[in-house]
């Protein structure tokens, strides 16, 4: 028989061997499936889900910021961002150059951006282009198949109608930092979310912040959206009404000429801030669009420090405006009364050292009232000497110096009220009596913020009623469910006589002959005020430079007793010091103009023809 040769027994045993071999191989296969499907099924199920379920975040618009009459100060506008989804296996890296070309970006920069974003938040959508133009959107839509990882996300952005307007007050928003993510009130936020970083935006972030929505869709491997799964709509943040009066803010912004300084206006009856300006300012819209790194570095490195809110953070010697606090203290202590006179020969010797009056010829024999009106230094040297440093420290602290007013803005500074204890502790030196003399005219180690001065003047003129400055009315705070800070006010038992004498002095400064604040005078209005010029102590600088570096203050209030408005202007660096009184006058005038004529709206009257220091309108949000 052909084809029949072979040892059957050998073949049969080898066939059996083959059978076993196949069986073992199948067992190995089964164990492979066991490992994938049974041993750790959640792992691959999660991967499968991540493959085909796309989470599209829908950022919520932040609440708007309104003025006290519900006029919109800060708004939002719709914008689209182009993001790339992190998808398993889809090589974004390979597409980047083409995507960069399509979006008219520098490929290297884009690659860098994706790299850093990915390192920071793995498996999150990465924004590759904010404020997408119609061209960009068209590019994404027409390349759905080629670049399925690209997506459009509607992202409402902050719109600050005018560049630089109340920038320090509103504050900027920016992406949440890793540290902030760990804070308890930020726990619902995700990397990439925008939060307030300064000013109102930060202070009331919990009110303004909306709830990001998520849309989940099923996509295929080419990024095509097959069907929606579910949708959690974004909830916008709540609107926030400030105590700011748009008209007064507008006047202050426009009339504040000069490149460095601050202005704050408040209603001392309630503590409500009516206007708050700081210079130099910056364009918040830069932040709304996602500020470029160079731009940010430039802002931070700027020696003028534009990010500083000088109204609450500039701590400078108050100069002569401090005399009002000292006069109040001396009257209360009884070391002076309206009959007290001192002789001013243009200076005087105290504790073996000669102290000059600002007026070279001297004021001659001068009484309490005229000393305030003419701001006679010698009179106040004597006042300080008679009162003594301990009482000066005690009363000044009562009047608000050396401590925060408690305004609802982050970063308020307390200023410094010096004392022998302070000096001993810090410098291990005793207090020289001569320092008391310098202190009497607001020089030396004493520093205050503009807000502090408004607070203090308001309290004195209101007969010792000090209302905590704030930007959200107590009523609104309650309505928003916020905790009202405590205390909201405190009272100093100032004698009526004290208040009358001091406020009459303030009136005289503005309205009487020889008054230093005549520039603040308004016909028919009971305006009081006080000027101040503080030398910036600098041993190296020449005398001439010193005057150049003087800081100029003006505090104005009206009416003189129980005022409705207190305005403080600070000009740093001297050049524009003469402007302090006029800008305060403008704000006070606007306040009363408005009161008389309820239709009056400065904010809308102001035309483009005005010489506007800042007031650039941001015409095209997309550009």
């Amino acid at each position, binding site marked *: *028989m*052909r*084809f*029949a*040769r*072979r*040892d059957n027994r*050998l*073949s*049969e045993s*080898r*066939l059996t*061997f*083959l*059978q076993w071999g*196949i*069986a073992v*191989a*199948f067992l*190995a*296969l*089964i164990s*492979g*499936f*066991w*490992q*994938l*499907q*049974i041993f*750790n*099924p959640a*792992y*691959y*199920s999660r*991967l*499968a*889900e991540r*493959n*085909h379920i796309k989470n599209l975040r829908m950022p919520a618009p932040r609440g708007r910021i309104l003025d006290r009459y519900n006029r919109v100060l800060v708004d939002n506008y719709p914008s689209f961002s182009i993001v790339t989804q992190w998808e*398993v*296996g889809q*090589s974004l890296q*390979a597409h980047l150059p083409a995507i960069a070309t399509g979006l008219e970006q520098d490929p290297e920069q884009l690659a860098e951006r994706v790299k850093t974003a990915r390192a920071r938040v793995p498996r999150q959508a990465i924004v590759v282009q904010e404020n997408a133009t119609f061209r960009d959107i068209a590019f994404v839509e027409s390349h759905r198949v080629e670049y399925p990882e690209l997506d459009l996300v509607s992202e409402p952005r902050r719109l600050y109608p005018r560049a630089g307007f109340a920038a320090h007050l509103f504050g900027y928003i920016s992406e949440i930092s890793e540290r902030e993510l760990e804070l308890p009130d930020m726990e619902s936020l995700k990397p990439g979310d925008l939060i307030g970083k300064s000013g109102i935006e930060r202070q009331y972030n919990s009110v303004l912040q909306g709830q990001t929505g998520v849309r989940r869709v*099923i*996509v*295929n*491997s*080419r990024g095509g959206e*097959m069907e929606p799964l579910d949708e959690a709509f974004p909830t916008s943040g709540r609107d926030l009404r400030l105590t700011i009066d748009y008209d007064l803010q507008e006047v202050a912004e426009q009339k504040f000429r000069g490149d460095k300084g601050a202005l704050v206006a408040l209603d001392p009856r309630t503590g409500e801030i009516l206007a708050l300006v700081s210079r130099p300012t910056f364009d918040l819209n830069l932040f709304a669009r996602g500020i470029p790194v160079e731009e940010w570095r430039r802002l931070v490195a700027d020696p003028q420090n534009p990010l500083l809110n000088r109204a609450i953070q500039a701590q400078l010697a108050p100069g002569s405006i401090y005399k009002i606090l000292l006069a109040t203290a001396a009257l209360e202590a009884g070391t002076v009364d309206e009959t007290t006179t001192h002789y001013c020969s243009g200076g005087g010797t105290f504790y073996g050292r000669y102290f000059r009056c600002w007026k070279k010829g001297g004021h001659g024999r001068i009484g309490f009232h005229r000393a305030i009106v003419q701001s006679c230094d010698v009179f106040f040297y004597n006042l300080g000497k008679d009162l003594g440093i301990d009482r000066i420290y005690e009363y000044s602290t009562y009047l608000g110096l050396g401590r925060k007013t408690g305004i609802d803005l982050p970063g308020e500074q307390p200023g410094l009220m010096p004392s022998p204890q302070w000096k001993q502790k810090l410098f291990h030196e005793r207090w020289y009596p001569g320092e008391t003399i310098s202190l009497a005219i607001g020089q030396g180690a004493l520093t205050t913020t503009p807000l502090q001065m408004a607070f203090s003047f308001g309290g004195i003129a209101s007969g010792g009623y000090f209302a905590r400055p704030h930007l959200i009315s107590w009523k609104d705070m309650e309505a928003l469910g916020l905790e009202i800070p405590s205390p909201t006010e405190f009272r100093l038992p100032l004698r009526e006589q004290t208040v009358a004498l001091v406020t009459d002095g303030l009136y005289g400064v503005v309205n009487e002959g020889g008054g230093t604040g005549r520039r603040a005078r308004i016909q028919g209005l009971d305006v009081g005020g006080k000027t101040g010029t503080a030398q910036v102590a600098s041993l190296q600088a020449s005398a001439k430079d010193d005057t150049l570096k003087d800081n100029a203050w003006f505090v104005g209030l009206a009416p003189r007793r129980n005022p409705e408005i207190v305005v403080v202007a600070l000009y740093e660096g001297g050049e524009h010091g003469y402007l302090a009184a006029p800008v305060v006058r403008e704000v006070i005038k606007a306040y009363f103009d408005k009161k008389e004529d309820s239709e009056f709206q400065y904010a809308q009257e102001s035309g483009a023809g005005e010489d506007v220091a800042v007031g650039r309108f941001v015409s095209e949000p997309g550009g």
Partner: protein
Amino acid sequence: MGKYVSLKDFDWLLLVLLLLISALGVVEIYSTTAHTRFAGAHVKQIYWILLGVSLMFLVCRYDYHDLLNHIPLIYILTLVALVALLLLGSDISGARRWIRVGGFSFQVSEGVKLAIILLLARFFSESHEERVSLPELAMVFLAVGVPGVLVAMQPDLGTALTLLPIVMVTLFLAGMRWRYFGMLLLAGLMILPVGLHFMRPYQKARIVTFMHPEQDPQKAGYQLLQSKIAVGSGQLWGKGTAQGTQTQLWFLPEPHTDFIFAAYAEEHGFLGVLFALLLYLFVLMRLVHNAKNAPDAGGMFIIGGIVAVLSFQILVNIGMVVGYAPVTGIPLPLMSYGGSSVLFVFLSMGLVNSVRVRRFVN
């Protein structure tokens, strides 16, 4: 002697197992293609299966000894076809594997496998050596090497590789000594670098990817990863027919051909996998059983070679799905969509039955 064959002796159990597997394949092809441009492929597959079954019965009636007698002619025709294919074949995605006859395209390499099985069966059933001698070994490698290289040049590395298990299993069944296998293994290891040198870049990439899948998340590594995700997310029960997200949303590559078992595993879970694997195992066991009962050595070698091809294809394809084997274009017998593959399986089953029904004849 061929006149006494009876359909009563036909392996009906084997046919039932084959049809069950084919049915699983048809359902999965339907599921993977329903919403794609391949929609309707499952109907074509049914036609192929019906054609295959008919061929099987036809071949079964034909005496395999006649085939063994005509081996020289079959061998030469095979070589001619392969050369012709290299020169004239239709280019499909860069590879010349197909010959068009009328409206159909056939993959010639499927025929090469059968030719080699028959060639080796005749060679060893006529050998006068008790065990395999070295000259015989050399002749075998020469005879298989020539068509093997021609297939590899198409380039169809998968089929060329399939020839290797046929040779090995036949040598094994022919009683080759273990130390010769050791020598072959050594020789293979030494030739490997040369072989790598002649590989196409994508073929090399597949090997590299198999070793380090994470290095290539885009192409072969992507396929492997997506396959594992599909399998793993199927869990115990599977996501249901036409419910697999990996399959239905096109994450899984080639879901109706090379990766059909991954799609099957995703939609029918571990239990479905177990069922299918047991069916395959039963088929192979049944085949070996038939080999044991073959009337002569020729028949035994034929079935042995077929077992070698099928086991190799099943193990490599399903192994690929779970990441045990590199990504190759080797289809899963009976489940993967494709006429050539289906026809090959049923033709070879016809041969098996041709042997089986003659077991009592001599």
